[in-house]
């Protein structure tokens, strides 16, 4: 097991380095001079030169990367060109926001997607199955940002039921937190619920055909118990591992949702940073997201490894 993890890590690290080089290069070739953006009205040559010197924008690009990577290894991701705050501090304050959003989206997706999937599998071929599939596909097909603005229009503007934007931590004011996050979490969770439903359905269908379920049935175990005790439990395994991967994707998918609902999380941080050429912030956030994404994939693999008896016996 340990050697397996070690092998996986050996792959993750070069991938992370590649990601960081990639984003670094991409940013440096972006048009738009950050010194100019920073200088504002003070556009004289001396000020621009000072800013370029201060943020090492004049160094050759490989040297800039080495400097950045060196500091990053020491846990220093630089400072935001825009607000002068350390990037690590910015990330520290934004990460909990996006995680809360993602967790809530995940909960919604689970509450909707898994039961729908089970029901659809059990009632395979019926109207219920058909409808559930159509709804799930619709969930996958609806543009999230459109769903978001339509919900704002209906729920916030026309009905005035929920705030249209903002964020409050669940630990500070749970009620307000739920009020502000329920719509964005729903929007973010929609396509996820659809994916979960489809996978739950196919996992359940697979399990329901399996020998032990047939055996249980032949022993006269009630259909209800067969589905819950025997089939669902086993179908849950791939769903749980899948959800770890999906969670990693959620962090990235929050980008547009946060933009629409003005939620001060990771996604909004990075979109604004790309547009204002706040290099250090973009670099830091992408690195963190990549770590999160790869980390979740690793966890999913390990979980699959541990939970799946067949794989375990191969060790």
């Amino acid at each position, binding site marked *: 097991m340990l050697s397996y993890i070690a092998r996986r890590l050996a792959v993750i690290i070069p991938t992370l380095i590649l990601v960081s080089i990639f984003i670094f290069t991409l940013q440096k070739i972006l048009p738009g001079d950050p010194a100019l*953006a920073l200088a504002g009205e*003070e556009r004289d040559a001396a000020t621009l030169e*000072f800013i370029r010197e201060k943020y090492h924008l004049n160094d050759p690009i490989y040297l800039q990367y080495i400097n950045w990577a060196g500091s990053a290894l020491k846990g220093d991701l630089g400072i935001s060109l825009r*607000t002068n705050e350390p990037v690590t501090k910015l990330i520290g304050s934004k990460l909990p926001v996006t995680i809360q959003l993602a967790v809530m989206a995940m909960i919604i997706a689970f509450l909707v997607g898994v039961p729908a999937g089970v029901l659809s599998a059990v009632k395979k071929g019926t109207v219920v199955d058909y409808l559930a599939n159509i709804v799930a596909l619709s969930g996958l097909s609806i543009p999230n940002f459109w769903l978001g603005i339509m919900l704002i229009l209906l729920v916030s503007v026309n009905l005035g039921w929920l705030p*249209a934007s*903002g964020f409050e931590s669940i630990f500070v004011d749970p009620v307000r937190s739920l009020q502000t996050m329920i719509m964005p979490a729903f929007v973010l969770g929609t396509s996820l619920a659809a994916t979960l439903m489809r996978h739950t359905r196919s996992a359940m269908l697979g399990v329901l055909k399996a020998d032990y379920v047939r055996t249980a049935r032949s022993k006269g175990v009630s259909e209800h118990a067969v589905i819950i005790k025997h089939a669902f439990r086993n179908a849950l395994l791939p769903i749980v591992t899948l959800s770890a991967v999906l969670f990693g994707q959620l962090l990235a998918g929050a980008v547009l949702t946060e933009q629409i609902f003005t939620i001060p999380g990771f996604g909004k941080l990075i979109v604004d940073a790309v547009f204002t*050429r706040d290099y250090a912030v973009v670099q830091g956030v992408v690195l963190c997201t990549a770590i999160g994404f790869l980390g979740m994939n690793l966890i999913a693999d390990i979980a699959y490894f541990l939970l799946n008896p067949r794989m375990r016996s191969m060790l």
Partner: protein
Amino acid sequence: MNRKLLAGLMLGVGLSVTPALAADLRIALNSDADMLDPDQSRTFVGRIVYASLCDKLIDITPELKMIPQLATSWSWSDDGKTLTMELREGVTFHDGEPFNAEAVAYNIERSMTLPESKRKSEFTSVESTEVTGEYEIKFHLKNADATLMAQLADRGGMMISPKAAKAAGADFPTNPVCSGPFKFKERVAQDRIVLTKFDKYWNADKIHFDSVTFLPIPDTTVRLANLRSGDIDMLERLAATDLTSAKADSKLKVESATSLGYQGITVNVGRGEAAKKPLGQSKLVRQALSYAIDREALNQVVFEGAFQPGNQQVSPASPWYNKDVPIPARDVEKAKALLKEAGFDRVEIEYSVPNNPVQLQIAQVVQAMAAEANIDIKIVSKEFAKLLDDDSSGNFEASQLGWSGRIDPDGNIHAFAVCGAGMNDSAYCNPEVDKLLNDARVAPDDAARKALYDKASKILDEELPIIYFYHLKWIWALSSKIEGFVPYPDGMIRLENMKLAD
């Protein structure tokens, strides 16, 4: 706790209006401020925060008259090269440090010399300062400078605590210490800036809120929805197209003031290949474009008539406006004739526009109007950072860019029209205009200055390195419970005398 419970129950039945705490004022801003340091910052919304956080030497009235704030009175020497200021006594900074002439001297020095300072160009006329008493300071100038007062009434005149500034260095923005009515409490980037009441404020009687929270909410629809639901108490820059519905809402009131700035097209007339196109080469083509535009129709279509059409660097409402150069009425035939005179049947213009929907909407209206006058506009939408870069390096033919405006007319024209000046993106160069604008800086009184600006605007209106379209209006929407808000043309929100009605 009870209220939370109640709110929770209300959520359950689908009703959830959580009123803000009575003594906290929540203001939604159009975007997030940058660094909170008057010397380092450059955003408009940053200035709105400073209006509550940092007092200035001088303030203005809504009519743009200079009035005392931290300076109680001032006088000029006869040659206009020495300014003597008497300072307010008994003022303390948020960290308890006393405000005095030494502090002013330090602040001016910092604005002029801090490497990160963005105020340097505002103080180029200052030779030195001299502390002549605990509460008296003299500014010695290299040359007379009529614009200095306006700088001292803006970020240049904001006073920060010398002790805190020295201790923090360039890190000052993370914990700014000034002497305004509110002191800095916390900032969560892109989420909120919270200020709390400063009990020792010299004018504390006029402050009626315990705290003020600034929330950046870029989407105008969302800003308004938040105001309607009571999540915020006030917002700045209501979309002009929301004006009708906001006015119809009895829970809201709307205030507005014509801004000091302008919006229009900057034409590259002097730099690089792009300036060699017909538009950059011929003032007749630029005049044709100006005649092709129906400024009032533009205002109607895009802003439902809420803004102010214009044709100069200041709005027709300003005392500095040159009435001898009126807004031209649309004249398509004349535009075509001008093109002919310049030697063209049709011209094509590559037109840079920031890629936001309202700017693109304006550009498309301009495009449609110009097409009728045989001017084919090709819209090139650019990200804002790229647009700034291209504009300042001469990589554009025409660019749709505005200016937020300054109190003194010099701030709207000098840097844009004088040969080689910092923001002269059009690379316009005319010794006659340079002389007029430079003379206007040192002219003895407003009447003399006005005469010089009038001459300059006459020339600029013919040569059109910048084609002005309109002046936007700052539109604030606020809860009808708030009393005492006074709209200012500088777009700031001053909290003196503002309060919640019972």
